[in-house]
Structures are given as structure tokens and as C-alpha cells.
């Protein structure tokens, strides 16, 4: 068996798998951002707060209504998506004719308000949320102990990511969407309600963040700041993948998860910055991102 820089292969395999699991979160979150940016040209800075909302809605459903994980997985993204709907109608839709910066500032402000409200009400320590019974425990793979829930996270994220990609790139609905961003007036002339489509797209992107939040609830602490730390990394992922590229966001999400995982073995102190270093390099060599279609 090979041994790389003094790291035994079973440890390496374990870390690769873990990287893939973390990459799943990056992928789902950056996918949501890419959908929103690609189709609406909005840089959605409240994505982290909406991810947090997903976790909290799952927790609320359980605590106040006794509704468990599986229903939360469907309901929480819908609820979070609905808040996105309201935000788009009341505020974002007024900004489409202005520079990107206005949307960014608005969503950033919204994120601060949402996080502040939750912090004020629920405190910072977080709320407990247990792994569903059926997914507790794990498998011994020989080189590592793989918790069933983490395996589920990878499966769920792969399904959602590729489902979304398929819908946008390969279906008629996706074609309408892409057409509407190219030329909203023309698409409107064909009798398609463009503002409604854009509104639903934003809600969908936001719903994806909520979905990631529910996935994260049982393994990370459900607290008001859970998205604030993550969102910066996810933006870096989107920039590396190429703003607006759906497949780019998915693949870079998984890829960077793996790279970050490996950094944690070889140089743990650097694991917080490795993604940003890669981002800087990519921006220097290929400013439109690895999968970008050019500006």
C-alpha cells in the first residue's frame, strides 16, 4: 500500500470521504447562489441567513408541532422559499433595474436583521436537533466509521444538485427561464409571465438554502450564526466555479470540500484559508472562474 507524506492510506481515504460530505453542503448552497445569480443577476448575500432559517424551521417544526425530520425536509424549504417569495416581491423586484451592488446590500442587510432577531430571541448557543432514528448509527468501512446520516447527506445533495441542473439545462421550463434572463421582453411577448417566473426562481434558490439548513441541523449546532461563517466560503466556491454556472457550482462545491478535507490532514492550520488561496489563484489565471462562460 502507498503512504503519502507519512499519512496512512486508510486515514487518507477517510479524509477524502469526509471532504466529499462537506462538499455536499458547499454544493447545495453554491448551487442556490448560482441559480439566483445566473437567472436573476442578484448576488444573494442573505443565503447564509436562509440556510440558518432552514435549520431553525426544522427545529421549530419539531419543538412546537412535533413534526419530525422527514417532513421538515420538505416543509422547511417550502417555508424558507415562501419567505424568499415575500422578499423578492416586496424588495428585490424593485432593484432589478439598478446595479448589482444594490441587491447585494439589500440582501446583506436582510441577513443581518434576520440573524439579529434570532440571536435576540434564541440566544447564540444553539438548539439541539437529533439525527432521525432510522439514520443513526453507522457503517464500519474498514478505513473509517461512516455515520449513516453523513452518507445520506451525500446522497440527498447529489440528487438535489443534479435534479436542479437537469431541470434548468434540459427541460422546457429551464429553457424558458434561461430565455427570460436573456431577453425578458421577448419571452413576455410569448405570453409567459416573466416576473412570476423570476419570483419563483428566487424562492427556489432560497428553498435550496433552507434544504441545506435542514440537512445540517442534526450534525451542526442549530444557531443564528451558523450561516454567517459558511456563506463567505460558499461565495468563494461560486467565484471559483464561475458566477452563474450551475454545473460549475456543483462540481467546485464537491471538489473544494475534498481539497479542504485533505488540507486538514497535511496542514490543519491552513484549512480555513485554503479555499481563499485557490480563489485568488483562479481569479489571477482565469478571472471568469473554472466553468465560467466568460463575461
Amino acid at each position, binding site marked *: 500500500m502507498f503512504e503519502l507524506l507519512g499519512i*496512512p492510506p486508510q*486515514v487518507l481515504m*477517510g*479524509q477524502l470521504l*469526509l*471532504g466529499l*460530505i*462537506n462538499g455536499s453542503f458547499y454544493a447545495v448552497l453554491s448551487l442556490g447562489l448560482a441559480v439566483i445569480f445566473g437567472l436573476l443577476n442578484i448576488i444573494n448575500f442573505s443565503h447564509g441567513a436562509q440556510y440558518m432559517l432552514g435549520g431553525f424551521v426544522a427545529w421549530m417544526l419539531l419543538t412546537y408541532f412535533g413534526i419530525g425530520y422527514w417532513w421538515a425536509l420538505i416543509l422547511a424549504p417550502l417555508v424558507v422559499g415562501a419567505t424568499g417569495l415575500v422578499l423578492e416581491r416586496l424588495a428585490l423586484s424593485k432593484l432589478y433595474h439598478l446595479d448589482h451592488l444594490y441587491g447585494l446590500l439589500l440582501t446583506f442587510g436582510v441577513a443581518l436583521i434576520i440573524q*439579529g432577531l434570532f*440571536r435576540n430571541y434564541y*440566544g*447564540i*448557543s*444553539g*438548539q*439541539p436537533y*437529533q*439525527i432521525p432514528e432510522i439514520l443513526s448509527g*453507522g457503517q464500519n468501512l474498514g478505513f*473509517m*466509521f461512516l*455515520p449513516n*446520516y*453523513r452518507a445520506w447527506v451525500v446522497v440527498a445533495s447529489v440528487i438535489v444538485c443534479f435534479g436542479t441542473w437537469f431541470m434548468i439545462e434540459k427541460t422546457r421550463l429551464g429553457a424558458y427561464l434561461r430565455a427570460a434572463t436573456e431577453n425578458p421582453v421577448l419571452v413576455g411577448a410569448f405570453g409567459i409571465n416573466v416576473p412570476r417566473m423570476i419570483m419563483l426562481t428566487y424562492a427556489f434558490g432560497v428553498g435550496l438554502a433552507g434544504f441545506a439548513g435542514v440537512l445540517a441541523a442534526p*450534525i*451542526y*449546532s442549530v*444557531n443564528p*450564526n*451558523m450561516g454567517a*461563517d*459558511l456563506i463567505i466560503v460558499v461565495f468563494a466556491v461560486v467565484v471559483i466555479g464561475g458566477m452563474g454556472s450551475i454545473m460549475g457550482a456543483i462540481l467546485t462545491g464537491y471538489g473544494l470540500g475534498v481539497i479542504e*478535507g485533505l488540507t*486538514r*490532514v497535511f496542514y*490543519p*492550520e491552513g*484549512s*480555513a*484559508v485554503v479555499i481563499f488561496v485557490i480563489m485568488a489563484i483562479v481569479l489571477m489565471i482565469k478571472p471568469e472562474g473554472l466553468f465560467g462562460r466568460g463575461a
Partner: protein
Amino acid sequence: MMRSIALGTAAVAALTGTAYAQETIDVTLGVLNDRSGTYADLSGEGSVIAARMAVEDFNAEEKGLNVEILSADHQNKPDVGSNIARQWYEQEGVDAILDVPTSSVALAVADISNQMGGVLLNSGAGSTELTQGQCAPTTIHWTYDTAALAKGTGQAITEAGADKWYFLTADYAFGHSLEENTMNVVEEAGGEVVGSVRHPFPATDFSSFLLQAQASGADVIGLANAGGDTVNAIKQASEFGITQSGQSLAALLMFISDVHALSPETAQGLQLTEAFYWDQNDETREWSSRFEERHNAKPTMVHAGVYSAAMHYLRAVEAVGSTNNEEVVAHMKANSFDDPLFGEGYVRADGRVIHDMYLFEVKAPADSEGEWDLYEQKAVIAGEEAFLPMIDECDFSSEG
């Protein structure tokens, strides 16, 4: 009402002939802590409430003290904390600053308090530097420090037979200090440190570090981190079957707010050291239930420390008859206390407060009778043993 009390005290003063009590003494206390970040639950608004309770329980008004309490958020940033402290001393007439979690901020504020004639009554920070390397005559470090935590948890676990340690350490000053303190205790107790890994602060995913710890073959994984990092690490350790496979976890700094967030399902069996637990005796229960009425949560040891420190400070101001920082600190150091929350203790010449520490174990869900019924007491660590001995450079007794 105010006037009649003031007249009353004046009359009493005139009868007894004391000179001071004729005028009220203005005392301004500033509670400076994290009100929005990682440490907001263990300090935050709760500490302000604790300080207010101290003023009320002390009957400050009747004793001729006119106490005002200010509060501010230092955002865990030394520059922000320093600016607020400076402004408080210069413009708001603050006499003492309370709480100040986050060691880097606490050290900066300790220095400013010393320069500007204020007193730092620290409850929230953990660094031993406050009363060792960077001690100051006006610093009083009330609740805990990393050495006491290491002593409590490190020694108890090593002596119980689990003597191979691996450390998971937050990569900043506090984590390093906690790691080093605990390593010393472990090695003194005959244990061995087989390795350590430093994780970025703050971190969300610990699985990778936990796996490295698992592969090390250690008996115990020492978590030299705090707040959300500790919570996430413990949650994930249970998920990855670390505890089931025979390794145990030692949370070197953990507050009841963290344990509450984890719930006993995940945290059961964890051993940790604290200076205070609400359910220790009638007095702690009584105070804690009054606190809970106002704050919707049981107090942490940091909240309790703010209360007791404020009490002891007000006693000294009353006795001295002024807020002169040298005289007040001298009085605080010269007089031991018997406190409802911390029991008997005293302020050592270097400003380290010596009181008992306790080793707790988190209850199993079946044994927990309520949301906050979380700890079982395993051992008492006498104050003299728990804290580091005084170093000569920090012996301020001659200057008092």
C-alpha cells in the same frame, strides 16, 4: 421615596456620627462583554442582569451608594474593547469594569484600567496571564482560569486511569494556553500526550480532526476550545462513534449554556470543571431562580461571578467610603468573603480570587429531571489547589 431614604440615611449618619454617609457616593459600573457573538449566552445581557441584582441585593441605595450600570458589546475584539473602556473611564466616570470575556480583550482592558484608575473585575475570561505574566494591581480575576480548568478536568481523568491524551485545540491564544496548562497537569499526574491538532477558530466541521484523534490511539480527546466549537466537536464525536469505540472526551472549557445546547442525549458522561452550578445548595437555587425569572435561562458561572464580584466591590466601596481604586482594591484583598454563590473565598494579593472549583459529570437523559437538571457533582477541588501559585512579580500586597 429617594429623598426620604436619603434623609433617613443622613439622620442615621448624624446620630452615629459617621462622616461619610452624609453624602451619597456615586458608583458607576460598566459591564463590558460579548452581546452578539459566540459568548453572548454565557456572558451578554445575563451579566448585566447579574450586576443589577447585586446592586439590588446589596441595598445600595439605603447604604448611601448611588449605583449606575452601563453595558456595551466588545464584539470579542481587543481594539473595540479598549476604546470602550477608555471612553468609559474618561467620559462616563466609570469606576469598575465587569465581566470582559475573551482573554485578548480582557488583557487589553486590564492594562487600561490600571492606567486610568479603574478596577477590572473579570469574570468571563480564562487566561492565567491576567494574574501571572500580565498582572496589574487593579485586576481582580473572579471566576475561573485555564489552569483551574486543566487541574479539575485533566487531573481527575488522568488519575481515573485514562492517561493517553490527544488534544484538539482552537488555534489562538486561549486554546494554546488551555492546551499547555492541561498538558502540564496530565504529565504531572503520570499521563502521556500522544499528539494534538490545531483547528481554525471558529470551525464548523470537526470530523476530519476527530478522525485524526481517533487514529492516534489515545484514551482521551481533550477539547481545548470553547463555545460553539466545543458543541460542534462533541456533537460530531458522538456521531462518528468516537465515544462508543472506547475513547472519551474531555471538554476543558464548557459552560452550562453549552451543555444545554447539546442536550443530555449527546453530552451525557462528559466531565467538566466549573466554579458554580445553580443546583448546588439552597442559596444558589434561590438566586438562580430569581435570575431565571428575568433572563429565561439558568445562570452560567460567568453570570454568578459578575454578581459576586459586584457584591464584594460594593462592600468595599461602602467600607472605604469612596471609589478610590487603590483603597477599594486594598479592602477587597484584605477582607475574605462568604458568598451565597461561591462560598468562602478571598482575593489574593495578585488579584486571583481563590474559591473552590467543582468537577461535574453531565447526567444521562434518564436521570435528568428537567431542562436544566444537567450536572452531577463528582469532586470538589479546593481553591488553593485549583489555581496556580502566586508569582513574586505579581505580589502587590506591599503596595496596598
